[in-house]
């Protein structure tokens, strides 16, 4: 099924199972969702549970958090996470910190979801990745699905979770289709929060990635395997909490690491992963950790410049080779 259908079915099933779940966001109802993720839900659940809002992120995010204080389970959609900055005070100060400041009296079972990161040709204000910003904050959980299984399992887990969850989708993945098992299609399916998935096992170098970059990493691993480098690809799934155990176990096996992300490099997810590995598995490293991230510039519009601003598969392959001390491609040896 496509990621879009995976998300839609997850929302549908969770709304059906729990009457306190409701959706709020711009164009989620009558328009059927800006990216059609909420298609059909207004007809099925009515305007009391699928609310079209005016273009007022600070207002409706605050209203959603207030409703969550009272025990409802809102799913707030940001048309893209770039607009979450208008509401970020509510995400951080009103949602993330409440359980702590009230010593457990006020928990906030809310989900903030929407597309994150670069799309295609949408320019600087519509292309930022917010994973590092939100994952910085204790009290939030930050998830980033890649496949349809991830989308279904993580969104269901997020809605059921009693804590505020930031759910970072990717617009370019919505239309991609992935095979799913019957277990994934079952309405009780959910993935655990905080556990990464080994998408591809390998023994020479570990590549960590999340969201769309997982697909790129897998393609890079295919190319690398032809050169005799066996790459292990980790789909992080959860940025906060970060599955440090899985990352470190993998690095202790392969001894080399490439961190991959789409967002800006400084203070990014890769920086945290690098530090975590240095702290826990330094003796196991045979090479410096490599980092592939978006370019340190606002996203340009021109197609050739945009291509230079976002990681490409050849960048990942090059970094993996460097980690393996192989500057030039080599043919596989028997």
């Amino acid at each position: 099924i496509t990621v879009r259908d995976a998300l839609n079915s997850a929302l549908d099933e969770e709304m059906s199972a729990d009457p306190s779940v409701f959706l709020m966001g711009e164009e989620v109802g009558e328009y059927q969702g800006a990216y059609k993720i909420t298609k059909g839900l207004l007809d099925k659940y009515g305007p009391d549970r699928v609310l079209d809002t005016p273009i007022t992120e600070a207002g409706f995010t605050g209203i959603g958090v207030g409703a969550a204080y009272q025990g409802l389970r809102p799913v707030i959609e940001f048309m893209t996470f770039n607009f979450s900055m208008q509401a970020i005070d509510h995400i951080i100060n009103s949602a993330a910190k409440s359980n702590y400041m009230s010593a457990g009296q006020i928990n906030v079972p809310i989900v903030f979801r929407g597309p994150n990161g670069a799309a295609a040709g949408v320019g600087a204000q519509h292309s930022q990745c917010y994973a590092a910003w939100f994952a910085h904050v204790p009290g939030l959980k930050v998830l980033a699905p890649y496949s349809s299984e991830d989308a279904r399992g993580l969104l269901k887990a997020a809605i059921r979770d009693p804590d505020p969850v930031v759910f970072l989708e990717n617009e370019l993945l919505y239309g991609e289709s992935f095979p799913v098992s019957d277990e994934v299609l079952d309405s009780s399916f959910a993935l655990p929060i905080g556990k990464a998935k080994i998408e591809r096992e390998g023994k020479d170098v570990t590549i960590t990635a999340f969201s769309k970059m997982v697909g790129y990493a897998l393609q890079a691993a295919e190319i690398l395997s032809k050169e005799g480098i066996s790459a292990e690809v980790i789909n992080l799934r959860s940025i906060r909490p970060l599955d440090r155990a899985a990352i470190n176990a993998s690095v202790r096996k392969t001894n080399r690491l490439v961190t991959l992300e789409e967002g800006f490099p400084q203070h990014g997810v890769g920086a945290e992963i690098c530090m975590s590995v240095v702290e826990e598995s330094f003796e196991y490293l045979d090479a410096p950790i490599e980092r592939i991230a978006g370019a340190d510039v606002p996203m340009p519009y021109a197609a050739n410049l945009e291509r230079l601003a976002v990681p490409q598969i050849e960048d990942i392959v090059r970094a993996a080779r460097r980690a393996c001390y192989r500057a030039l491609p080599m043919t596989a040896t028997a």
Partner: protein
Amino acid sequence: SPPSAPVPRHRIPQIPLNPARASRASPAMAAAILRRLSPAAAQRAPPRLLPPTLARGVSDSTEPLTVETSVPFTSHIVDPPSRDVSTTPRELAAAFRDMALMRRAEIAADSLYKAKLIRGFCHLYDGQEAVAVGMEAAITRRDAIITAYRDHCLYLARGGDLVAAFAELMGRVDGCSRGKGGSMHFYKKDANFYGGHGIVGAQVPLGCGLAFAQRYRKEGTVTFDLYGDGAANQGQLFEALNMAALWKLPVILVCENNHYGMGTAEWKASKSPAYYKRGDYVPGLKVDGMDFLAVKQACKFAKEHVLENGPIILEMDTYRYHGHSMSDPGSTYRTRDEIAGIRQERDPIERVRKLLLTHDLATAQELKDMEKEIRKEVDTAIAKAKESPMPDTSELFKNVYVNDCGLESFGVDRKVVRTVLP
């Protein structure tokens, strides 16, 4: 650690005005009443603002009595309620007690702050007591209240424990937020008091969200969403008000207009300081916020209004004697004459004292004795709060999440302090 089980909403009974204050009620009776209110509340001693025995002598009658408000209500696109307010001697005596207790508690907090037992920010409410007490007189504990950081008295009005309040201010583990919140983060969920917020204006959309949930669940209850004249210009207020009006949310926006947003006078901050009119398409009422009965009347009117018609704005014309916070002497932007003048002409406690005396419901000495007892009560509470220890170091890592799922967390030096969240 998981929170205590949420109180099932359908089981909270409609309770009359603060039964624990019924002057002939024993503490045991109050406890029995509160057990019906919520299982969690029954485990604690009933929150008493004052020992019930003090009421002897002061009239306890429930005979209705009509009093005129200080000034008539001014309104915006709605017919105002009458300025004749129905009350009882018991209600007036209770209002006097509660306001006097709040006044004494805030002044005591001032001393604790100067003694460096309270740290950081401390925003005091003295002068504004009539808003908190008048509101409580008009509503039930099933209605919700949310406010910003000047929250100590709202917490007490909702039945908050005096010892827990002082312990929280001093950062002790028996504080209402276990010492982890501080002055600006008091909450009492079982009384539908949602804090306690430090970001100016943020509580306004949150309050509209509380009302959203009340309407979603068809509870027939309302939310009082308090903010100041300083917050009244926040964009998010208008965003939330727009949605509240569109969706007919049962929310009452209460502007506690004490005329100064920190150090900025209202006429310097707002092109239009007629805050009750700022809702434009949303009706509003201007209320003398120093008059307990006017506040009560306005809140009663507002509650009935919003359940039928959607949001309304109440502008409470009130005043704070202290500066914005304990770091502000409060005299660089206003004159001492102004402060003294308000205290002389409009003090909320003095107004009710005069009513009690003129209507022969109490003698001056009885009221003075009551205030002496209140002072003792507050001193006892502070002494008890001082005995409470600082939170244990393990508290640092508690309540970051509800569902901790075996998460790791780290102290400053993660090679030294590292834990799995409880």
